[in-house]
């Protein structure tokens, strides 16, 4: 009875201070808007009404809240919680601002992108920047590549390499993880240690010998070079082994009675059961392949074999100070991953939390 009453009080209390947070943030937001408006209108003149000064004011307000929460220890719960919200929101602005800036700049003209003080909103949205950036590699390559070179090609290579790598890793890891989790064989510990030790070796230290090996195989500038060296992934093997170990052995006994072999058991029972783990691992494998730059930069010299990241890097070198185009290219290079993230966020978070806790 007493506990329930207490809960009611907290809920009531929370609501009250949430309103407070809400109002105070609307207030701050209006201040921001006024600041931005006035700040951008006074070209060159740095008056009191610049966004930066409002941010300073905001920081001062936060400072006062900190002081209040320190001096007013008891009964200062709402101050504390307002403070928590305000700090988190300030952090949010810091996290989002560069992205906002990237997207807005991608719609500016060359002149607007070079304006000082910067413009927070373009005069007119230049959608053609995106088209121009997308087709830019064609203008920047010399010679005669066998395929028309635009970002379409870079995307194609990246998606193909990413999918092949992810699929390959999941295949090799499922087999290895199954052997480590459910089978007995001599040298199990040794092999496990070999794979464990592999984690300690930084990939960069192996670039040169791997480059020489690939050159010997005549794999440079081919998909082989981008996919095959990455087909074993320690993180994925660990994650799957961990999960396989939680699946009871009774299932295997039952499958044996039904006359299934190990391989069939693995693909028809174990794999469907471990879908969440497969998705989590798959996301990270795909992300790793998609975002990697160093390795593709070295093994790829022909422009039509560039992955998206290598293409973006090359564009960065060619574009010079065309920041509006660079920002457009950066935006569409980032967008697919952001989309995947919003749909599969749960798996991202789980995957990371798990690696942290298990290690």
């Amino acid at each position: 009875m007493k506990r329930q009453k207490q809960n009611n009080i907290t809920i009531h209390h929370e609501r009250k201070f949430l309103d407070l947070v809400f109002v105070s943030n609307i207030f701050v937001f209006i201040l921001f808007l006024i600041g931005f408006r006035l700040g951008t209108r006074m070209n060159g003149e740095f008056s009191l009404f610049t966004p930066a000064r409002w941010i300073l004011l905001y920081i001062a307000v936060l400072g006062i809240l900190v002081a209040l929460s320190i001096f007013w220890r008891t009964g200062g719960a709402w101050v504390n919680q307002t403070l928590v919200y305000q700090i988190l929101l300030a952090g949010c602005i810091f996290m989002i601002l560069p992205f906002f800036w990237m997207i807005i700049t991608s719609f500016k003209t060359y002149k607007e992108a070079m304006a000082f003080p910067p413009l927070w909103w373009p005069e007119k949205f230049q959608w053609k920047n995106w088209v121009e950036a997308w087709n830019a590699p064609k203008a920047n390559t010399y010679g005669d590549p066998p395929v028309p070179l635009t970002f379409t090609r870079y995307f194609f290579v990246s998606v193909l390499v990413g999918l092949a790598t992810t699929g390959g890793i999941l295949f090799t890891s499922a087999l290895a993880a199954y052997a480590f989790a459910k089978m007995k064989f001599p040298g199990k510990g040794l092999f496990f240690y070999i794979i464990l030790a592999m984690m300690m070796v930084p990939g960069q230290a192996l670039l040169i010998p791997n480059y020489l090996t690939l050159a010997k195989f005549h794999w440079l500038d081919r998909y082989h070079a981008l996919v095959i060296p990455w087909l074993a992934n320690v993180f994925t093997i660990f994650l799957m082994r961990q999960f396989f170990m939680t699946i009871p052995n009774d299932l295997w006994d039952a499958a044996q009675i039904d006359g299934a072999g190990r391989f069939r058991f693995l693909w028809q029972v174990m794999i469907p059961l471990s879908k969440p783990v497969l998705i989590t691992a798959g996301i990270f494998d795909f992300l790793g392949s998609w975002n990697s730059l160093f390795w593709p930069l070295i093994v790829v010299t022909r422009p039509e074999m560039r992955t998206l990241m290598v293409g973006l890097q090359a564009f960065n070198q060619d574009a010079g100070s065309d920041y509006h185009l660079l920002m457009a290219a950066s935006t569409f290079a980032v967008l697919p991953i952001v989309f995947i993230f919003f749909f599969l966020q749960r798996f991202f978070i789980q995957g990371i939390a798990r690696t942290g806790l298990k290690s």
Partner: protein
Amino acid sequence: MKRGQNKFKRRLKEYSEAYLYLLPALGVVALFWLFPVILSIIVSFTNWKGLDTWSTVKWVGFANYANVLMDEEFHQSLLNTFHYAMYSAPLTFIVSLIAAILLNTRIRGRSFFRTVYFLPFITTWVAISILWKYFYHRDFGLANYFLKSLGLKPLQWLSEPKGIFTLLFAPLGIDIKRPLLAGPSLAMFSIILTSIWRSVGYYMIIFLAGLQNIDKSYYEAAEIDGANPWQRFLHITFPLLSPITFFILIVSLINSFKVFVPMLIMTPSGGPDNTTITIVFHLYEKGFQGLWLMGRASAVAYILFLIILGITLIQNLFLGRRVHYES
């Protein structure tokens, strides 16, 4: 007798099946991880250049290592990498711990904040580096705009070779010249800030998972005993979080020794006075640009490998003892 033979046969079958399952993964590991570790030692003792073949390559003994260790640029790259690791790892650690603790209080919209903080981490280093290069631009970057509108002098950001502490103490009339005391150059520090911005969300999520694993009853007991929030943090949260802290320290330190991409894009020529050349950047320059000195670059790679191995071992020895494990 027959039964024993059958058993033996069955076992043999199981073993061979297990090895067959391990084959794909171990094959890749052997060919692209184990073999190169050995090949890289051999290459580092030769004058291998570009795509030379064995017949033209000469054994040069320790000459590569001697050259690397005498190289001024390598010293600079060691110092730069050391600066990067010393500042980015702890700062990221502190910021993400604070963010995680704030998120772990009773607030609404936790998943919203988590998403926003995590967003930079999934975006690629290449795009982010281009973006921040623009952000730090001397003439029309946002960073200088904020400084100017606060009435401060604009900074050179990515083209400032002076150390941050030199810059900080210059107005007080103190001139810091020793490279270790001067701290990373402002150019390097700009990159450090970018890396903090990018990875806070990642470490925050790991911390958050750890915080949520701590039993609430500890806090209730401490509250009854009259412990204030700071004491609760120091005597409950921090010790119980230490396995995760340990993990994060190792991972972020090792990662910061491998940093390369932001430097390549934000300061492609090595930054002002070479102050943003890292070990991997140096390796890339020596091995894959200009003269393609594979032997020399392999020596650099091996030194990097030893450094990272060293960090892991030292951390295991010293920090491992202090870690509290929940039973």
